[in-house]
């Protein structure tokens, strides 16, 4: 709660609290006492008490209340059972229509957000994602952003058998890396300078499995926030054969912001 209210403060936005379950005296007291203890209780503009199944209720309300950002708490590592059945948080992440922020370590005291890792994977919504990423970085006061360009090994198109093919593949990789760097640099140049000025921007090309590499990268660099594009619709099959965003959802390296264009 502390974390969420603080976030609302940073983003200068209204906070709607949704409690799935019956409204009782006791619960209401508890909630209001928690809100009162936060840094900016006035940010909370509405309370909703809706009984029902958490998943469907939340899904419906995000649409009916036209919410911009859904904030959810989540456990960092998914267990085997959960991985296939899915926790509410992760199920919602996959299916809601708005952007989602998954928090893995909400804290009472503020832990400064310093390093934001952004996926620079080429999609039609990437400019919007970059905008949102830098906007959040700015709001949260982060001073370092790394844009990770994940390049599939397949795109190198050279299979390494011996020294000669190794040299060819390294050359090809350099070309791809430069291309990706240029593409991302162009997109950043289009962003308002007010957003990018105070943040030191790095670009990091990684050759590896899409979706997985960036999560692992965020973990080793101990990033505070990972920003990703919204995934294309996934099914249970994609959990059996894990891919893309499922890698990150099953093993959250940091807080995760998933951007969906409105």
């Amino acid at each position: 709660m502390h974390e969420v209210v603080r976030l609302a403060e940073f983003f200068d936005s209204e906070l709607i609290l949704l409690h799935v379950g019956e409204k009782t005296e006791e619960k209401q007291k508890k909630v209001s006492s928690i809100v009162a203890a936060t840094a900016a209780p006035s940010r909370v503009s509405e309370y909703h008490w809706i009984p029902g199944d958490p998943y469907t209720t939340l899904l419906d309300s995000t649409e009916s209340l036209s919410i911009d950002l859904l904030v959810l708490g989540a456990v960092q590592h998914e267990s085997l059972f959960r991985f296939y059945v899915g926790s509410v948080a992760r199920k919602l992440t996959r299916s809601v229509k708005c952007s989602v922020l998954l928090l893995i370590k909400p804290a009472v005291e503020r832990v400064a957000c310093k390093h934001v890792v952004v996926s620079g994977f080429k999609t039609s919504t990437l400019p919007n994602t970059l905008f949102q990423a830098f906007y959040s970085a700015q709001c949260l006061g982060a001073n370092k952003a790394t844009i990770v360009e994940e390049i599939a090994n397949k795109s190198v198109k050279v299979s390494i058998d011996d020294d000669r093919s190794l040299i060819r593949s390294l050359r090809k990789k350099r070309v791809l890396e430069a291309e990706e760097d240029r593409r991302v640099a162009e997109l950043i140049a289009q962003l308002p300078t007010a957003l990018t000025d105070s943040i030191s921007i790095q670009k990091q090309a990684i050759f590896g499995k899409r979706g997985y590499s960036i999560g692992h990268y965020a973990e080793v660099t101990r990033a505070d926030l990972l920003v990703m594009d919204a995934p294309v619709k996934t099914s249970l099959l994609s959990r059996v054969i894990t891919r893309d965003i499922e890698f990150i959802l099953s093993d959250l390296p940091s807080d995760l912001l998933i951007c969906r264009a409105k």
Partner: protein
Amino acid sequence: MTRNQFISSLPKNLFAGFVVSLIALPLGLSLAVASGMPATAGIVSAVVGGVVVALLGGSYVTISGPGYSLVVVLLTAVTTLGGGDLFLGYTHTLAAITIAGVLITLLGVLRMGKLAEFFPASAIEGMLAAIGLSLLVKQFPIMLGLEAGDGNPLIKLFKLPFVVTEFVQSAPESASTLAAGLLGIVSLVILLFNSSIRNRYYQQIPSPMWVILLAVGYSYYCQLRGVESPIRPDLFIRLPDSVESMIYHPSFDLINSWGLWSVAITIAVIGSVESLLSIKAVDNLDPQRRRSNANKDLRALGVATAISGFLGGLNVVTVISRSSVNVTQQANNRSSNFFHGVFLLLFILFFSKLLNRVPLSALAAILVYTGYKLAHPLKLVAAAKVGKEQLLILIATSLITLSSNIITGIFLGTLITLLSHFVITRRPLLFLLHLFQPNVLAFKEKDTDSYYVSVKYFCSFLNLFKLKSKLDAIGATKTVVIDFSLCEFVDHSAMQTVENYIASFEKKGGTVSTIGLDLHGASSSHPFAVRNLATENTLGSIEKLFSRRQENLSKMSKEYGWEYCAKNQPIDPSLYQFLFFETKPIVQVYNTLVDPVSNGVVQDIVFNEGEFIARESARVTALTIKLESSIPSFVLDKEGLLDRLNAIAGLGDLTVEGHNYFNRKFHLSGSQPDKIRSLFNKELIFLIESSPIYLIESSGSELLILKKDRLLSPTEVKALVYFGRELIETLACNSISSNREISN
């Protein structure tokens, strides 16, 4: 290689091919006889293998020919597939070899060159030991001039002493047994003590050839004295007189039976694994450090096996011992393999009469020696040193292989290894959950030319190929740091593979170093021992269980006169003076290195980020230096990470006039701007700009220097200590000059 180079290197390769053929001849004959096939079958396979693989292969200095791993399988096939008729069994086995050749070619086409990587190292060792033992027990009676007899090799192993008593009893009665047996024993002695004879001329001829020469010489000695050789005629090898009579063709009558196919599959799998292991090992011997194209070589070996089987030969594999002789004879391309085949063909065409004078007992001695080398007792000792579980895996795999067959043995051995991992970690889920997930991240670090490879979850033979493919894609001339700190379990195969990479990178001018293993518990002090994060507290003293990094650190300290202590140190509260650690509770301090010159202390520090976080702790290698005279406190870092903290403390970003690059690249802040500006003079800025750092912080009386946001490899630690010395010197000069200014 240009055409001229190729031609100018031909004589060298011709000679190497000749020397190799001298070994290949006795080995080929004996392997074929041991497989229950005509002696020429081994020569056919070596000739076909040499020529075909030289023309189509993808390796450089390997030699191909008949291998030892399948001798037992082939012998069983010859006796069972013919239903008692040995010749029929032979032609059916040839059919299996031909089919196996097609299967191996398919494996090559499907790029299964990494097939050998899915078997744990100890299980393969166990399988080889079992092959060696069965060769030994089978050939030992033949070496003594007795009947081989059938039966389970395991039972025969225990009956080995009785074979000796049988020889002692029957030798005085039969001159044939006595002569053959003595010849066999002398041959074995020659082979065993070959390496201790330090005569240059003697060493020119490989030891198996000495055995042949001895046998032929004995036969001529008898002839000169005008007596018949006492050895019975059926104890000699018999070579056909003409080429046509050496060639047999397979019969595909049993093509629909499972028996034939199971032999074919065994030959294909075990033959491929043997070849792939040899190719990898020979690549490490190549003085030019070329990387073989394993898939291409596999295709060539498949084609060669099919042709060899069709012409009546054994299966073709890459053979390590002949290849290593090839390398020591300075062969540098595939032509030596070709010449080895051609020489063998010439030998068999022109000297077959001579070779008919060689008794089987001499050939058996060669195989007994080969088997002894494969099942050397020291291998058990070596495995036990790595860890008890490795010894268990090795023994279990060899027992299973001996009592059933090779394929069952290697697969059950793999299963036992997996179970041992479950037991060691007590977390089978760790493996099951992440088995098919990618677990390796590799990227080039910005600003430097080094690569950072991080491994997550676990790293064992199951997913080792992922790490290998990443490392293969980097190129051995680069600097690589492998970080295992997110990896909870690293097995013996992985440690051994990483060690191989360290060696091969060093040879090509690159480096591989591992970090993040220091906290893992190890099952023994061996560098290849299994590492497990879960047992870290149970093993007590970590000095006995040094990781490679710790060993290097300790060596380095001795070399440069630093004091090194691997043990956990009490946490020095003065560390908390630094803003960097202000919000980061320190959990553990270890691997302490003290440099007496600069008074600097290098430590690995484990800390948590923030109090309430359930996140894994982070690790850095830090240098702290106590200063003799105090300087203004400041924070200098490349990424502005501490800006926020400083902002809280009321400190802003400082710029130093006239140093635009420095201002752009580094964030400097502190509470006494003027003093700090005067501290950062040209020399200091030059020093800082020229060596990559992550953070320098001064608390007034002490300095904290971080080079990277992670643990450092030993070479990086060296650079850090050097930087510390330079920094202290520059600061000392600074204070002298500033004092002078004041006095002026």
